[in-house]
């Protein structure tokens, strides 16, 4: 609303809309203030039967960082995410958040939207409030989260009529509605087509920027990892093989030479280790 008024003032300086939004976001967020929780993982191991999936993971993620975890399928990246989200029990080691985390503070978004088909979009988002579902402002918060992902006009629809990308946005709104301090993404864009993927990536980056949670993204798409993350972890054989900082300033331009170079070097390492195992 305010922004529209400002544009109408005759003596206002012409401002590019996108730049303006960017500045507004920066101002809202403020420098070095993060609601996110830091995350420390020490010596975490996990096996399923005889198969040792994680063989000692040590990792510290500062509050508010966007970390991407990549690796070939079966390397244990999804298991690590499920351990962080508390969906599996740890065999050995510890995972601790900087302070006591309530269950509403850590949220997961899966590859499948996992919406309740028998609940309207708005009620699906309300599910994300956890124990606050019954509170009086539940509906207002759910509406706010839907607006955040640009689907406020779909609030009374059944999930069945939404497209794949829209369903995933509802799932994102559901994850966001409790104002989580850690958000774990398990290949949330894996099932989307290329164009929807790119717009979803932008959306993820924007909400992360706005809400300043700690983000952990598991993906098999290295270009997605370098486009979104501050830091890319490569997991191989149940251990962190590489820890690559992505020092490219945001907003990042998709397809820029810096991103491509970084993507290439990470892919090379992944392929190299793939060759080694196939030789065995």
């Amino acid at each position, binding site marked *: 609303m305010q922004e529209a008024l400002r544009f109408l003032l005759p003596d206002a300086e012409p401002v590019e809309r996108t730049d303006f939004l960017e500045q507004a976001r920066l101002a809202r967020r403020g420098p070095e203030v993060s609601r996110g929780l830091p995350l420390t993982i020490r010596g975490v191991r996990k096996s399923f039967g005889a198969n040792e999936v994680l063989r000692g993971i040590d990792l510290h993620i500062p509050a508010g960082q966007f970390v991407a975890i990549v690796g070939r399928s079966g390397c244990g990246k999804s298991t690590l995410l499920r351990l962080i989200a508390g969906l599996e029990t740890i065999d050995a080691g510890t995972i601790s958040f900087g302070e006591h985390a309530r269950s*509403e503070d850590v*949220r997961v978004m*899966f590859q499948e939207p*996992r919406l309740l088909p028998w*609940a309207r979009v708005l009620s699906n988002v309300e*599910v994300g409030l*956890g124990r606050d579902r019954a509170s009086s402002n539940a509906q207002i918060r759910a509406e706010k989260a839907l607006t955040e992902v640009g689907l406020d006009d779909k609030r009374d629809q*059944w999930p069945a009529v939404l497209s794949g990308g829209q369903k995933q946005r509802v799932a994102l709104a559901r994850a966001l509605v409790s104002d989580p301090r850690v958000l774990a993404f398990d290949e949330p864009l894996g099932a989307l087509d290329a164009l929807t993927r790119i717009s979803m990536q932008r959306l993820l980056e924007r909400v992360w920027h706005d809400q300043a949670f700690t983000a952990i993204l598991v993906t098999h798409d290295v270009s997605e990892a370098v486009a979104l993350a501050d830091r890319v972890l490569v997991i191989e054989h149940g251990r962190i093989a590489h820890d690559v900082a992505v020092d490219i300033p945001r907003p990042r331009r998709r397809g820029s030479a810096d991103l491509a170079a970084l993507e290439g070097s990470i892919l090379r390492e992944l392929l190299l280790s793939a060759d080694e195992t196939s030789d065995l």
Partner: protein
Amino acid sequence: MSLIESLPRVRSLRLPRADGLIQWIVPLVIVVVWQVACVSGFVPARVLPAPSDVALAGWKLLLSGELARNIWVSFWRASVGFVIGGGIGFAFGLMNGLSQLSSKLTDTTLQMVRNIPHLALIPLVILWFGIDESAKLFLVALGVFFPIYLNTLHGIRTVDPQLIEMGRIYGMTDGELFRRVIFPGALPSIFVGVRFALGIMWLTLIVAETIAASSGLGYMAMQAREFMLIDVVVLSILIYALLGKLADSASRVLERLTLSWHPAFQKH
């Protein structure tokens, strides 16, 4: 372009209105052919009375109050038996679907009992209950129990485990999980069970009433057979068909109301 745009619109305008009538064309044609065959003497009246004679017999019975009383008695037996058997089947379906222990304890027994045709129990039931109301209710309840039990169990067991995991992550209590995830997920399957059960309900009742009863539609048909009133026999059969159709329509309406989220039930 305009043709492509207008085509689906024309179809959607025409179809719903025709839909309600189209299903009655075949029954209507059958009745007309039947009437013509009887009036022309092609079918002798002692084999099959004309529809007009059947309607006349119905009108007479309606005036005497006998028809309404018998329909009411049959309807009452059907619904009470359905509620008892369906209720117990639903309860067992819930218990065995939600609890491993309960399932281990009772499922094998129930599966064994299921394989006995419940109508084979009629001699035993007559010995136990005589030709009392309880005999009919017992048979209907037994017949209705299994389709509802099996489909409730199946519905609960096949609820998407990913949705259940999602519910747990978002802090749903067991009660909430049941109310918001498991029960709505099982509902389409439960309705399949209900519709199967409605068919079995009428079947059981007809058999039970023709064999051992002193009132009801089946009894009315058997009495008419004694006195060679073939129009009343045919009338009872037609009423069974109508009541069956009515029960099925009722369950469809209920289905449409509760499953409006389901893509198969969405109006366009």
